């Protein structure tokens, strides 16, 4: 009964979405206030029914109702409760429902936090989001219904993919979807602004907090995915340029460009057309990513159920949404006039350069991801494009961005003074280079140019952020006064940029100085990695709730003192009968020690992989710092949003300092 209830709720949610997608847009176009107000009510109703549907599906998993096909395929009587709940979004149908629910959640949020928006603008925003909801809900109901029954009911289920029976994997999809779907809000704002014909800086001010929150979630989702791959896949890697990883990274790059562009449009009234286009691109890339991983056009370790029928539906949906938005852009954008004037040397131009670099990076990743498909479609053969292409294309684009990120805040708006800048920065270049050389020489090898360059750039970035902060504090009476008087969004920017530097340090050091040994070890044998000695104590059998495992025991010592006890496992899951390697990691701020069991060999010996990974945690730490920066900035916005009264789109009432 629960499943039918959920199915019904889903259909009602679709009806609400149809109302939400039609009346407000018509009302805004024709000026009918009653129709425009349908948006709020329909949006909230849609979310309510989606929540009911989702709760029904979760309930089917909790009680293990195997008469529901989706539950029968992905759950099992031995699956622990926590993973049963997570299995709700562990496969295609359920994860699409999660997508729809999260879209409903964002819709609900827009209906709540929109007091400063005009009725007409809000109606258009909700209308566009409603149309997107209609597409997703139709897709679920017509091709990917999680509520279908399975008759006759099997006695037990197919179990959740063991790769997903893991904490990181359970929160990674919801976080990512919060990001992907959140970008639909910025998209809807952009379309609403285009349709209404009013593209002044007010719409940018409204969009910013929504885009920030979506960006924060997307960052978190990507960081989680990378961290998960590192500890779960057993080879110490953290990024593989897999099509699904790229599908999350491209929207992130464009969303970062969008954030910067929104700042310029809001503060200076420049880049208006650019910002609208970026908002369209960001969400389009989210939808494209959804298409790529569910249609079977690309091979990927992540690919969901590849079903050409589903692929066709999403492709048509993608073509409609993106095609119509780009058409609206082509029709309305020529009328946009930038009100700002700026010279060559100015913060505006630096940010423009930053955006060009970010978009170029996203475009090259898109090209590399689609290239095998393009060649195959043109009958030019089958190739695969992997890390050699992506890393050689991405690094040269990122280097200028790192160099610019620190110093851009030092450039004045409109017209920056080169002599003044040179005076401020003249010590920074030699100082960062010097620090880079010093740290590389002291701890590693001076002949490693990559490390030298990476560390120098990181020092440069942190140094220039420091100079920027110092410039502002200096204007106050005391240092404390100066620190307190900076806006949260300034700290947000500084934190996020420092996060880039931390990330860079982690990438450079872990890729240059990781050590790996693959050895045959019998109980009692040791292997030396750097200053660490790994002693293999043997393997015992252990039993888990739905798996059996062989657990190795390792002691790691340095300078004669025990540093860690590591217990890697080789698990065999009862139902799907796959073998999973659970690596054992001793985490640390400056290094990770990593052990994974390979295969049993003769006697009691095993093949074992041991890794020494310096500074690898800094990669995710950098990501977390970026998130923290984003959170600071959001804190700033919300305070100001609450104090703003309803503003008509044509007035640009900027009551804050630049």
């Amino acid at each position, binding site marked *: 009964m629960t499943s039918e209830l959920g199915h019904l709720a889903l259909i009602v949610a679709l009806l609400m979405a149809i109302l939400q997608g039609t009346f407000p847009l018509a009302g805004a176009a024709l000026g009918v206030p009653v129709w425009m107000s349908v948006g709020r009510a329909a949006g909230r109703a849609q979310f309510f029914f989606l929540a009911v549907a989702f709760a029904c599906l979760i309930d089917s998993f909790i009680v293990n109702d195997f008469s529901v096909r989706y539950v029968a395929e992905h759950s099992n009587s031995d699956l622990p409760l926590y993973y049963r709940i997570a299995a709700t979004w562990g496969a295609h149908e359920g994860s699409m429902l999660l997508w729809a629910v999260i879209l409903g959640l964002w819709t609900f949020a827009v209906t709540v936090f929109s007091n400063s928006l005009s009725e007409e603008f809000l109606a258009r925003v909700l209308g566009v989001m409603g149309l997107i909801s209609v597409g997703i809900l139709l897709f679920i109901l017509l091709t990917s219904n999680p509520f279908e029954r399975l008759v006759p009911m099997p006695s037990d289920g197919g179990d959740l993919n063991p790769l997903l029976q893991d904490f990181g994997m359970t929160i990674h999809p919801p976080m990512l979807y919060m990001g992907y779907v959140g970008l639909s809000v910025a998209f809807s704002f952009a379309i609403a602004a285009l349709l209404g014909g009013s593209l002044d800086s007010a719409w940018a001010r409204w969009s910013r907090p929504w885009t920030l929150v979506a960006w924060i979630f997307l960052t978190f989702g990507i960081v989680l995915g990378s961290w998960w791959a590192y500890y779960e896949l057993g080879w110490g890697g953290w990024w593989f340029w897999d099509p699904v990883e790229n599908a999350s990274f491209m929207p992130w790059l464009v969303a970062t460009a969008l954030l910067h562009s929104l700042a310029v449009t809001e503060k200076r009234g420049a880049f208006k057309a650019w910002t609208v286009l970026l908002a369209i691109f960001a969400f389009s890339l989210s939808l494209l990513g959804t298409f790529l991983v569910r249609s079977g056009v690309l091979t990927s370790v992540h690919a969901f159920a590849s079903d050409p029928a589903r692929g*066709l539906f999403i492709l048509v949906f993608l073509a409609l949404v993106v095609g119509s938005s780009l058409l609206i*852009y082509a029709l309305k954008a020529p009328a946009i006039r930038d009100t700002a004037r700026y010279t060559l040397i100015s913060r505006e131009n630096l940010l423009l350069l930053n955006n060009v670099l970010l978009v170029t990076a996203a475009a090259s990743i898109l090209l590399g991801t689609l290239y095998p498909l393009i060649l195959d*479609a043109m009958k030019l053969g089958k190739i695969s494009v992997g890390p050699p292409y992506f890393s050689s294309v991405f690094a040269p684009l990122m280097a200028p961005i790192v160099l610019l990120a620190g110093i851009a805040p030092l450039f004045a708006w409109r017209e920056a003074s080169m002599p003044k800048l040179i005076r401020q920065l003249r010590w920074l270049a030699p100082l960062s280079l010097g620090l880079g050389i010093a740290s590389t020489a002291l701890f590693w090898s001076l002949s490693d140019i990559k490390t030298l360059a990476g560390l120098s750039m990181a020092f440069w970035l942190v140094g220039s952020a420091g100079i920027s902060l110092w410039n502002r504090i200096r204007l106050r009476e005391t240092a404390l006064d100066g620190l307190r008087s900076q806006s949260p969004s300034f700290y947000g920017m500084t934190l996020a940029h420092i996060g880039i530097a931390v990330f860079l340090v982690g990438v450079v050091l872990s890729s240059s100085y990781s050590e790996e040994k693959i050895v045959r070890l019998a109980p009692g044998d040791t292997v030396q990695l750097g200053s660490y000695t790994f002693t293999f104590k043997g393997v015992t059998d252990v039993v888990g709730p739905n798996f059996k495992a062989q657990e190795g025991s390792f002691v790691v010592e340095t300078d004669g003192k025990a540093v860690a006890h590591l217990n890697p496992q080789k698990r065999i899951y009862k139902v799907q009968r796959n073998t999973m390697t659970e690596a054992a990691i001793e985490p640390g701020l400056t290094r990770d020690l990593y052990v994974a069991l390979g295969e049993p060999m003769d006697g009691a010996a095993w093949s074992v992989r041991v890794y020494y990974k310096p500074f690898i945690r800094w990669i995710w730490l950098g990501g977390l710092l970026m998130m923290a920066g984003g959170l600071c900035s959001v804190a700033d916005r919300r305070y100001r949003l609450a104090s703003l009264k309803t503003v008509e789109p044509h007035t640009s009432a900027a009551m804050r300092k630049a």
Partner: protein
Amino acid sequence: MRFLIPLAVFAVMVIFLAIGLKLDPREVPSPLIGKPAPTFNLPQVADAGQFLSPDSFKGQVALVNVWASWCVSCRQEHPVLVQLARQNVVPIYGLNYKDQREAANGWLAQFGNPYTASAFDADGRVGINWGVYGVPETFVIDKAGLIRHKHTGPVTPEVLEREILPLVRQLQGEP
């Protein structure tokens, strides 16, 4: 008109994606088409004392089918092969890939044996030489011992009618 560029680029991309829906990215064409079948000399599955090599079927058109008892899709295609063997159109030789002898023989006893003989490739080395990357796969070998076609995946009646049997008939007509 530069505002139409994004739309135009997008349209091109959608066309490629639509074409992509009809293609299978996992399918890799064989580089061995037109080349001599790699040689091997393996014990047979049924009788370890007997050996099988491509010389056994030189001079006639033959099908070589890569199979295993652990392979689910092989069970799917097996009735088609059994049916084909009964028609005596072309001899089918088996390459039993990375399997256990008892399991393989048991599987054939249970589901039927369409093979004139099956070679036992326990460690898969012969499979590597033949470019096998998935099971089942079916090769068409001509009278001179050259590989003329490879089908990846289960053989269905449509595949037989459209791909394999026309080629077999054509090759049998050649000297």
